[in-house]
């Protein structure tokens, strides 16, 4: 991607307008000061922002947006910057709006099981704050120590427990947001639904293209009385995939159901000493939670099913320490990838579960073809794949090879009836793959939805939804006769 240079005159004009109400420590524009904001969790893409604004009050957010709207300056909102699709990649002609200072938990209502929090509150901080009430916030993306709830809403973040407990969209009830014009929006409410269109659902996962979210009311769940983990080893990855199908077919919805392949196991084991069987082709980690008797019964059923589906070894956690140890390796998978390889590229396709075995075979073949290793870590229960392609950015051509490998996986995901992204978002990373997943009429609808909120296309332009021109240049648009109807659409 071409890096945009910063126009100094424009920068002065924008800084001048923002300095009218922002204190100097909340306004960064010197090269060394804005450098930390040049990328998010997808570090392959970077760009220095023209200006970084770090507001501390919602009034400041509102005024920043008004200024940007009036001056026609693009705005990219950012939480903790842990996103994996480049959704918070800045623009050289834009304001990077950091919401990192909005870290207050405004209200906890234990009887109603809700918490009202500012957008910069960390995901895990919510669960920590409500733990004393026996409650927690269910979505648990792997970055939950660092990622913010505002970013979670923008991406509709998932995690390991969403098969049973849902995604972000299922676990929030209300939002406070601002439009690009600085108009406040109160979306949802304290009840389970709201009148009119479901804007709560529309804004969730909208990747900062529709509005800037400043406050979220989340649902809290009672902490299950007990959780227990079962680890099953398999000599064959496809067999592990079949065991996943068998569990769901038996009417069990486990709290979590994760798959790791041999390369992943061997990468994480020296790192965390979880005691994984190193000779297994794959392991499944399966968690049951709920009431005491319920967990006991579910674990017994899971054991029977895993055994009947060819598990070579089954271990059941006997206490909380063992359970945590079993999960430690899974949670460390991304970190381990960073240890065994200078760089890695994490994919996020989702496919129907029945396609798991064939997908694993296809990924193995691609790995051979590109000469790049690939660790497979899956949210197996919901078919969400996280192949980690290992490469070395310092070796010429390897990044491009990794990207091509990744794109092939996404193409296979679409072909299998799935999607290019299950929980990481499109961002800048998968913008071209969107041209393959959607046809021109659907992309046209997305553009019109964007325009309904942001007519000047200033919020996070260039992300999430490709322009039709871009798709045409990319050459993979599904253009059918008579369907190319929006040649005049503005770019964003």
């Amino acid at each position, binding site marked *: 991607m071409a890096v945009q240079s910063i126009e100094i005159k424009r920068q002065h004009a924008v800084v001048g307008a923002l300095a009218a109400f922002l204190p100097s420590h909340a306004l960064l524009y010197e090269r060394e000061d804005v450098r930390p904001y040049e990328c998010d969790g997808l570090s392959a893409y970077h760009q220095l922002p023209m200006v970084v604004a770090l507001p501390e009050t919602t009034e400041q957010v509102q005024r920043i947006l008004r200024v940007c709207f009036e001056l026609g300056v693009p705005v990219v909102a950012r939480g903790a910057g842990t996103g994996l699709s480049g959704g918070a990649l800045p623009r050289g002609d834009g304001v990077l709006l950091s919401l990192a200072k909005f870290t207050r938990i405004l209200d906890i209502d234990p009887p109603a099981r809700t918490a009202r929090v500012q957008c910069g509150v960390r995901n895990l901080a919510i669960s920590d704050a409500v733990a004393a009430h026996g409650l927690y916030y269910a979505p648990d993306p792997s970055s939950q120590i660092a990622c913010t709830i505002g970013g979670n809403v923008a991406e509709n973040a998932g995690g390991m427990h969403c098969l049973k407990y849902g995604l972000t969209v299922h676990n929030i009830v209300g939002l406070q947001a601002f439009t690009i014009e600085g108009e406040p929006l109160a979306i949802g409410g304290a009840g389970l639904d709201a009148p009119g269109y479901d804007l709560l659902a529309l804004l969730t996962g909208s990747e900062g293209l529709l509005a800037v979210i400043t406050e979220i009311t989340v649902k809290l769940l009672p902490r299950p009385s007990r959780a227990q983990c079962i680890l099953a080893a398999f000599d064959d990855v496809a067999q592990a995939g079949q065991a996943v199908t068998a569990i*769901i077919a038996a009417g069990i919805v486990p709290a979590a159901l994760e798959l790791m392949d041999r390369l992943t196991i061997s990468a994480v084991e020296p790192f965390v000493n979880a005691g994984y069987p190193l000779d297994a082709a794959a392991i499944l980690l399966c968690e049951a939670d709920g009431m005491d008797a319920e967990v006991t019964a579910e674990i017994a059923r899971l054991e029977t099913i895993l055994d009947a589906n060819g598990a070579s070894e089954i271990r059941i956690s006997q206490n909380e320490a063992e359970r945590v140890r079993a999960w430690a390796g899974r949670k460390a998978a991304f970190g381990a990838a960073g240890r065994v390889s200078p760089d890695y590229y994490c994919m996020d396709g989702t496919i129907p579960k029945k396609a798991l075995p064939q997908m694993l075979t296809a990924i193995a073949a691609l790995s051979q073809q590109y000469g790049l290793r690939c660790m497979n870590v899956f949210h197996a229960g919901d078919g969400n794949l996280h192949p980690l392609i290992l490469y070395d950015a310092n070796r010429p051509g390897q990044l491009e090879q990794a990207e091509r490998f990744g794109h092939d996986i996404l193409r296979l995901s679409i072909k299998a009836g799935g999607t290019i992204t299950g929980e990481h978002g499109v961002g800048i990373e*998968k913008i071209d793959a969107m041209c393959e997943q959607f046809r021109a009429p659907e992309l046209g609808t997305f553009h019109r939805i964007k325009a309904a909120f942001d007519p000047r296309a200033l919020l996070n332009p260039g992300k999430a939804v490709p322009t039709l021109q871009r798709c045409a240049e990319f050459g993979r648009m599904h253009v059918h006769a008579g369907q190319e109807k929006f040649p005049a659409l503005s770019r964003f």
Partner: protein
Amino acid sequence: MQDLIHEYSAAIRNAAARKVPLRVCGGGSKDFYGGSLAGDKLEVAGYRGIIDYEPAELVISARGGTPLTEIEATLRDAGQMLAFEPPHFGSATLGGCIASGLSGPRRAHAGAVRDFVLGIRLLDGRGDDLRFGGRVMKNVAGFDVSRLIAGSLGTLGVITEASLKVLPLSAAETTLRFEKSTAEAIALMNAWAGRALPISATCHHGNLLSVRLSGAAAAVHAAHQQLGGEEIADAAAFWEGLREHALDFFRTSQPLWRLSLKSTTPPLELSGTQLIEWGGALRWLASDANPQTIRAAASAGGGHATLFRADNKSAGVFQPLSPALMKIHRELKQAFDPAGIFNPGRLYPDF
């Protein structure tokens, strides 16, 4: 079947060109719900049938005109269900179920229609045949149009197909009954929801609190032990009656209001009779009280009031939106239906 899509699409293009309103009609079971029924009928129940269903994927895909009963029977045979327990109110179709966005007794515990919609095929106001979402549980590619369409009352387009997440039927189920005042019931429902109990529905009316437990036999048994109460025999019929508004409470000549509120909202000081569901978050009110008073009470409870069934709907059906939200609604309506032909006035008088 594709012929029908072309037929509907042509009818839409024709209506859009002439700016003639269309009243999208599936089974017609929810004609009573919402604002005005204006326009020429566009009958879409003919596009029906289950397209794809593999129980191990926990997903069913069907055409919009498929009767809900057909979907539910198919799921039941495979030991699964629509966990949001949509009401039928007659000959309901899948398309109407999603368009109305109504969910039944299990909603507070399992989720609403919109929570289970994974993908849709839609004819917009240009007659364009569009597909959003898909058949997988997790999908964040593009804006979540599927969920936006749920509950939009046919004002944005015609739902021709949909894919829904389904869940396994509970292995065991029992219903417990307690004698409790309204205030006690609200407090108990919220307290119990804060504990890891397999509660799948609650209802309070008169001085009776009914609590349904669903899940593994061990869980249902253990929860029964913890909660006490009296086990009732004809529970399935009771919950069915609640879901379909066949209980005596709903046989009223007074306007029926639906108040969706914060679950802990104290008993409403409004004239008329009330029935509470969803752990306190849904209050049905049969009342002749002033609509302004009812809407004010709903706002005070952090929620909104809908005039669910009434002969006279001059007070408006849905709680008015703030000007900022109404502006976005109009823009979205314009984005999907530029000629303004779909179900005008059904959701808000403005569009």
